Each structure stands twice: as structure tokens, then as C-alpha cells.
């Protein structure tokens, strides 16, 4: 089916909306192990989830301010880097969000 430009814009908007919530879940899941921002972005890209840096770093700070992540400055490759990982509270939230995601996925599988 031919997609008109306006339809393509609408699709892109809807795709972004659909993706927005799942990115947080993906970031939390990747931070079960400690990573710094650039490494996290690469890890997500390797599994097919590209995320803009402009969105990633503010998201990491927001999740940290919400108590879901902890961070620490450490020197690596002769440069100070900020490493993030899940806090105990973040682990609990990730477990609940993962269960919710699976439930939504199962429901949608029956619908689409």
C-alpha cells in the first residue's frame, strides 16, 4: 500500500509514542549491569534499539532522581566517566514493569 507523506508523518508520530515507554524499560533492563552513557547507548544499538543521546542522558538523570538508578563517577580510559546501574528500588520497578510488559504483549498478541 502506498503511504502518503501525511500518513508517513502520522505513522512516525505514533511510532515514537509507542516506542517512548518501551525505551525506559529497555534502559532499566540494560542497567542491571553497570554502564556509562556511551556504553549503554552502544549496548542498546547492538540489540536494535537506537536511542538519541539528547534523549538518553536526560532520561538517565530523571530515572536517577526518581531513585531507580544510582550513579558514580569513575576514571576509565584516562577520563572520568559517570557509571549508572539499577538501584534496589529500580530492580523492583523493573520486575513489575517487565511483568506488565509481558501481560500487554500477550493481550496484544491476541488482538493483532
Amino acid at each position: 500500500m502506498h503511504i502518503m507523506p501525511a500518513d508517513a508523518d502520522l505513522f512516525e508520530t505514533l511510532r515514537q509514542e509507542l516506542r517512548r515507554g518501551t525505551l525506559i524499560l529497555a534502559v532499566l533492563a540494560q542497567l542491571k549491569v553497570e554502564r556509562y552513557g556511551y556504553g549503554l547507548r552502544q549496548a542498546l544499538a547492538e540489540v536494535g534499539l537506537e536511542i538519541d543521546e539528547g534523549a538518553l542522558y536526560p532520561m538517565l538523570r530523571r530515572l536517577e532522581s526518581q531513585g531507580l538508578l544510582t550513579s558514580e563517577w569513575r576514571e576509565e580510559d584516562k577520563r572520568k566517566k559517570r557509571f549508572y546501574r539499577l538501584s534496589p528500588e529500580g530492580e523492583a520497578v523493573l520486575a513489575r514493569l517487565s511483568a506488565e510488559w509481558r501481560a500487554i504483549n500477550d493481550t496484544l498478541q491476541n488482538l493483532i
Partner: protein
Amino acid sequence: MDLLDRYLAAVAALLPKDQRQDIVAELRDVLLTRIEAREAELGRTLDRGETEALLKAFGHPIAVAGRFGPVRGLIGPELYPFYAFAVKAALGLAAVVAVLSAGIAALKTGDAYDVVPRAFYAFVSLGLGLIGGLTVIGAAIERGWIRLGRSVDWKVSELPHLGEGWNVGWGGNRRSPLKIRLEALFEAIALVLFILWMSGLVTAPWMVGEVRQGLVLAPAPIWTELRWPILAWACVQLAASLTSVVRPDWVRARAALDLVTDLAGLGFVALFWRSGRLIQVLAEPRVADAASLQRALDTSFQIAVGVAVAVFAIKVGIDLWRLARGRRGAGSGGA
């Protein structure tokens, strides 16, 4: 690295003071990592232009710093419908106040020439002021600086009665009573001004001839002959408008008054047609184009009469239909 420092300084200036150092240190690491990755790809160091392009691609400092701020619109999605409703109500209020203030000013000065620009200016300035004030209040509520508490508590039983016209479903697309009232109110205001002009209490723009290059445009004698019948007609029309304001559900009463005024309107059109003109051109003998101007005005008048006949005829038909039908859904008990 002067470009990187310059870029980061521009971002830092826009960041919250307590987080500035931390965020800039992280951004520096991100950008240096990007630069190093690009240099590894190329096998050489980046020149100034390439570094600048890389920093530009990262985003404008305002945008980058903005992403680290709290994610919140000036008016959030929950508050926005209330804000939009308040803005519409404020613009309605501004329109009424602007028309009234311009009308009062015209009454005081006895000069109606600038009533329209005066009303327009008042509407724009008052409307923009109200929108600005509502936006500030909305932003303050959004940020919790103004707490509404229990003042926004509401009950279904306390919602205002808006009449049948607002019902959804069958008949839900009828004109709402509020719309009928507003239209009738504006019509009544215009009629009051018209009556004041016709009675000579306020000078109407079309009643004063203006001398320009030896030409005077004056009202035709028919206006003086029909002055009192037209005034009576305007008073009946005013009564119909006020009836609509007070009792928009009195469909038959309103239709009967409208029928009287619309039939009278057809009569006035016929009398104007017989007179041949609405405006006469009085010119000094040296003005050569006076006759052609009079012909142009008369032709415009003939076209206007044709339109007026069509409008009044359609309105009479609608009035008769409303009179026969009454209030839909209320059987024959409609007023």
C-alpha cells in the same frame, strides 16, 4: 578544544546552577567520546570544521540544556481544556465589553465614525491582556504555585441547565440556546446603535455628507420620509432580539416577531426600490464625474435591493416554517 569549551559554556549558562557542573562534565565526556570515535573512523584528528559540524549535530545549546530541565509544558494536558475554555469565555467577554465601550464612547461624543476601529482596538487590547493573564495563572497552577484545593470540586447536580439544544443524539445538532442568546444579544446591541443613529441622538456615518473635491454624498430623501416607520421596525426587531435573549425556547413567539419584521423589511425594500436611490451625489457644477458616480451608486443600490429581496424572502420562508413547527420534540406545545 576551544570550540568544545565554548559549546559547553553556552549549555552550562542555561542549566540549573546546582546541576550545572555535573551535567557539563558528563556532556564533555559524551562529546569527547564522539570526537574520538569519529577520529578513529577517519584515522586522523578532526579539523575545526568537522568538530563544529559534530557539535552542531548534537543540538543547539538551548535545546540541549532544555532537555535536562523538568519536562513540563506551560499549560499541561490536564489543565489545557480548562485553560482553552477560559480563553474562549474571556474573548467573548472582551467582545461584549469592546462593543459596549465603543458604543458608550460614541454616545458621549455624538460621533460614530470611529466606532468600529475603536471597538476592534478595545477587543484586541483587552483580549490579549486577558489571554496573557490567564496564561500566567494557568502556568502558576501547573507549577503548583497556586493551589486550587477543593475549589475545583464539582457535582453533576450543580452543572448549569443549558436546555434541550445541548442534548446529544436525535436533535443534538440544533443551534444551542447559548448560541441563540449570544447572536440575539449582538443583534440587540447593533439595533440599539441603529435606533440611536436613526433618531438623531448620535450622528451616523451615512447621514453626514462629506465634501471632497466638490462632491457631497448625502442620504436620499427617502430616508427622511421613512424615518419613523424604520424606527418602529427597528424597535419591533429589537423586541424580537430581546425575546431571543430572554427566552430562546419561545420558538413560535420569536418566529412571529421575525415574520412581522421580515415582511416589513420586504415592504421597505419595495419602497426604496420605487425611490430609485439611497444616496444622492450633490456636486458643484465644475465637477464632471458626478453623474457617473451617481450612476455607479444607483447600480450598486439595484444589486443590493435584489440581494435584500432574496434574503428577506428566504427569512420569511424560514419564519413560516418555524412558526408551523414550533419547538421540535415538544409537540404542539411549543411557544
